[in-house]
């Protein structure tokens, strides 16, 4: 049976130094439909039960398995080995994030920043008895940002995140954008202070690593530029939408 070679970065908090760089090699039975995630399961089941990684849907919608695979941000479940055209599959956790173990990053800062932008619809008016009307054109503005799966690839890839611990990062700002462009949202000034500041949109220097890293092919940079322009419009003309 054909085989695939996996080169996997390891980190055991009980035994390795924080900045240790330890890799293990595994040979996995290969068939043409094998994904990186299936390869990791094969290793965990048959070779090294201690190998740790996140998983859930295996269908690219839950955002659990974002990793750094052969030097690129990818979802392990969505990455078929035959598309990598490589002799060795190097699997590493997303860089620039604190590690829990092996391929599992600590996402607590990521979600704290998500929470910081008040990522929920804010309304002042009384709710109607049925739905809040929204035209297809208004709804279309949400198409891009609502597909975010919060995998963290953009956040890990962003040089502004690397150099400024407080920067909210692309995913949280994309979420703020998602609500600011929703015709049903009435936050006005309530959400604004969370992103209209030095932790927020202005810290984005349009390097656009996030665009390249996103496994869902979204464009957080575009959303962040919209936020900057909205803030300027608000200052000059007193309105943001």
């Amino acid at each position, binding site marked *: 049976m054909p085989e695939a070679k996996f080169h996997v970065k390891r980190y*055991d*908090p*009980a035994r390795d130094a924080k900045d240790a760089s330890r890799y293990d090699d595994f040979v996995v039975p290969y068939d043409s*439909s094998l994904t990186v995630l299936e390869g990791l399961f094969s290793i*965990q*089941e*048959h070779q090294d*039960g*201690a*190998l*740790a*990684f*996140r*998983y*859930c*849907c*295996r*269908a*690219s*919608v*839950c*955002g*659990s398995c974002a990793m750094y695979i052969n030097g690129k941000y990818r979802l392990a479940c*969505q990455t*078929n080995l035959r598309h990598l055209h490589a002799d060795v599959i190097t699997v590493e956790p997303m860089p620039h994030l604190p590690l*829990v*173990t*092996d391929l*599992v990053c*600590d*996402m607590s800062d990521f*979600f704290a920043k*998500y*929470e910081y932008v*008040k*990522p*929920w*619809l804010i*309304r002042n008016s009384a*709710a*109607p*008895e*049925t*739905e*809040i*009307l*929204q*035209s*297809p054109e*208004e*709804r279309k503005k*949400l198409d891009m940002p*609502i*597909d975010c*799966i*919060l995998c963290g690839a953009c956040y890990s890839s962003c040089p502004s995140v690397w150099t400024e611990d407080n920067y909210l990062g692309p995913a949280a700002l994309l979420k703020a954008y998602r*609500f600011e462009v*929703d015709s*049903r*949202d009435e936050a006005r000034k309530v959400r604004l202070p969370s992103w209209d500041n030095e932790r927020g949109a202005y810290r984005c220097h349009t390097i656009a690593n996030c665009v390249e890293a996103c496994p869902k092919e979204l464009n957080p940079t575009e959303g962040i530029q919209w936020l900057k322009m909205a803030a300027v419009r608000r200052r000059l003309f007193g309105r943001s939408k």
Partner: protein
Amino acid sequence: MVYHQLIVVGGGLAGLRAAVEAKAAGIDVAILSQVHPGRSHSGAAQGGINAALANHPEGHDDTPEKHAFDTVKGSDYLADQDAAIQMTSDAPGVIFEMDHWGCPFSRFDDGRIAQRPFGGAGYPRTCYAADKTGHYMLHTLVEQAYKHEITMYIERFVMDLIVEDGECRGVVAYDMTKGGLEEFRGEAVIMATGGAGRTYSNTTNAVISTGGGAAMAYHAGVPLKDMEFVQFHPTGLYTTHILMTEACRGEGGYLINGEGERFMRRYAPSVMELAPRDITSRSIQQEIDAGRGIDGKDYVYLDLRHLGAELLAEKLPGTRDLAIHFEGVDPVREPIPIQPCQHYSMGGIDTDVDGRTLMPGLYAAGECACVSVHGANRLGGNSLLETIVFGRRAGAAVVADLAGRAGGGDASAVGARAVAAVEARVAALAGRGADGQDPYAIRADMTATMKDHFGVFREEKQMREGLERLLALKQRCATIGLRNAGGVFNLDLIRTLELEGMVDVALAVATGAVARTESRGSHSRTDYPTRDDETWLKHTMAHSAAGGPRLDYKPVTLGIFEPQERKY
């Protein structure tokens, strides 16, 4: 020891909706979830959620009662009719509420929530958000959980219930990121852990859909209801079993056999591809069994080419992405190879319409529960509905049941004993180590057995063989070895501990299926091809017992719709 009035196990749609309901009423609630709630399997739901909103031009005279009739007929009359009416009456309200919370439903030109046709439905009543409805609903409820400042214990793997004087008072959980066991105490526990699809090798379900909540309740003495009814979705991708939504057919997609024929004309001439899932899956399987799969193989085509790139981009963009990434097929230009795959557990923890189980303090909602509204076959678009209707109702029931009750939270001997029991179980597994049975070999054997012996079509001898194999696997479970006991994010520990519950859930499916000598909904027996209302219009109740499940039965609530022969 950690104390909250209400412990919700599972952070998918049902668990989140329950938690929001209870928190908004002032209850101190915590969610424990194996994954971040935004990563729950609810997010994989695609096609939509049913409600008689009457927004569709062809559905202006739709009503909750018609929705209930379709649900009951779809269930092959095994659904409790009062429960079906309850769900369909609650439906419009809970969907408008999701809209008020920001759920990005697709829209008709008049600004109302868009609806599409779905299988087994008399009207186009499936509200949708492109073909990612579950993902968008899940993120909306996660957002509400943050808004309500609900405490979320993320990456906690719940291993057992704490039962005190016959009442459920908490859970024991493994802290995946820090390691070690923790005791969570509460006045009430809601199980919202999802389905058990991973007991089959050919499932559309997420890897974490292992039936853990149902297994824990079952082990604690709560019966599982109607477990033999397992839904096979007609259109799972051939190589990965990833779901291709029913919306593909709702939007006009065809099913094509190896002879290029739209074969559904022979099985459901009036509704064609929009027959309910049990009928459509059987039809595909019959084509395959008759050698009319593509090139004689075990798949047929889902053909969307005639719908055009524009419609796919607007209404089925996720489907196109999945087919490209996971099957290497672009539906704009090529038909998609599909086959029926395990998709949904109609059965589950026996509850009433408010999520109450037979054990005080224990509630259940969502796929892990069985109210029953789906009976022998669930309609597409009713599972997302079930999560928010019955999640909300379970949350409200806890609020009502805890009114006036003093909070406790004192450490008790029972809690400590429950933690010690889990520790002892882990120690025994670890003691056998590499000398014990390989849990992954048992898992592979179990999932293959379920696929091969309890599939779309069933028959006595084949099922008996399967049941014997499962009983033998259950024996092997007693001597499993755990190779890695401690540490953080210990997948060996999680996947070994969940296995025993999976085998018990599989045994409940198998035992119920062997016993039920009729064909009804998804339970289709070649040796008993007709429905037998005289004997079998009743719910199967499986009770945990030494040597395998003990079965008894309870009546179905009828009284609104007279059972008839099911034709489409």
